[in-house]
């Protein structure tokens, strides 16, 4: 009985800690939206669109700001395409992308870039490279944050 209580306590302590490790919304948040929205498809879609628009607006805002500071830096840093797909298409591609659990911990901003790469028909080996580097990058960031 004591050991069971101990395990329960540890589990309760670990759950919030897991949440803290996440730097960005990722696949698990994306899939969880449906549950948050009480399986209301319209609300789920609206939340997904709102999030995507938030990421894209933020990117554009800081691109413009960086552009006023140093044009070459901004153009190079924000060179990737994020607006090849319409938001509706992007939601569908992201749904498919995160349906694979192995992609679950890739941050949503990276997944938006990857989805557009799929849309642009960039060679698969390049996309796979980018996915692998995204995973390495987010793992490194989380480890650095922990340290």
């Amino acid at each position: 009985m004591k050991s069971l209580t101990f395990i329960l306590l540890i589990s309760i302590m670990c759950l919030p800690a897991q949440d803290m490790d996440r730097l960005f919304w990722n696949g698990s948040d994306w899939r969880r939206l449906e549950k948050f929205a009480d399986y209301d498809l319209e609300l789920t879609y609206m939340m997904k669109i709102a999030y995507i628009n938030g990421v894209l607006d933020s990117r554009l805002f800081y691109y413009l700001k960086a552009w006023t500071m140093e044009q070459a830096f901004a153009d190079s840093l924000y060179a990737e395409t994020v607006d090849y797909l319409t938001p509706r298409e992007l939601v569908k591609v992201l749904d498919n992308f995160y349906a694979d659990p192995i992609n679950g911990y890739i941050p949503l901003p990276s997944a938006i870039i990857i989805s557009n790469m799929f849309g642009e028909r960039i060679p698969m080996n390049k996309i796979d490279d980018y996915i692998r580097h995204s995973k390495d990058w987010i793992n490194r960031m989380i480890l650095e944050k922990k340290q």
Partner: protein
Amino acid sequence: MVSRLLIVVGFAFVMLCGQRQNRVFWDGSDWNRIAIQMNQESESIYRVKAAHINGLLDGRFYFYLKAWEVEPVLAEGAYDDPLDLLLHKELIKALDKFYSDPKHNTIPVISAIIIANMRVGGISEPVVYRYIEETRFWANSMKADIDSMSVEILAAKLDKHLSKPFDISEKYGRGPDYERKRVVLKPKYVESEDKGDKGTAWYTAFLQGWKFGLTGGTNRWSSSDSAVSSGSGYNFVIKTPLHFATENFETRVRLEIGGIKFSTDLTGRQTAAYVQLGLGDSTIPIINRMMLEIGMGSTLGNTSFSSGLLITLRKKRLDLITRYVSASSTVGTNLPPNWISISMGFNF
């Protein structure tokens, strides 16, 4: 008469309904529209607004980290806005209050978040007011620019897409051996091969693209002799490592193979290679390209040299070429020693 009027009014109404205003960022009107779209259900409204704020903050943090890896100083400068002094719930309340004033409708949501955080952070009201006015000014001017420049923006987006390098490994391939370095602008052509690619044929080092075209025209050396003189041919424009292009200047290597007819008993084959250089994207009206060229080849088995002017029209499809050609030897062929070739070609 009345039915015609009804049709016109109906058409105008449909056109008005079909018009969409160009919007760059989500702003106050989008923020306030969430409530209408969610049928005033406060829980749903809160969730959608929270999702948008999460997106904004995630996007900012993500691109800040990416920027910081390349240029920490610039990243610190660009991303120095205070955005995280308020909880989501407080932020949504502050934004609801801010956007309840219709004159703030054109302020982007991300700017409104900065404004809310400035107020909480103790920034004086005149400074906040100035920030709001500046934001309103640039947001409105950007909207006006986009309204008037939609076509150019679409063209620029297409150009950006077409010139996008497939090799993104330099930018994203940050393995363990990644070294921080100065930012390099993307290469212009997508055709350029990866340096590390294996299994590519040897000739790819010399051949980086090609185009095909047809040419036809007339040759002139004296009015009496050249009445029936004509020529036609195929041409290949080959992009080689020597093919060089900047915004305006361009060099090309062009190969032409075809037939030539000086008179009924003087016909044969002509081949030549040309090096062309000049304006690649001319700003002169109608003319897309204007290049000088020098060439060397064979006309009816005799070595020939040429110099000429090439003008390209119709989206780089239609070539007008004038060449002064000299043949090195005319023994046994009665070939004129030099002539002017005027031809027209179409590129596919």
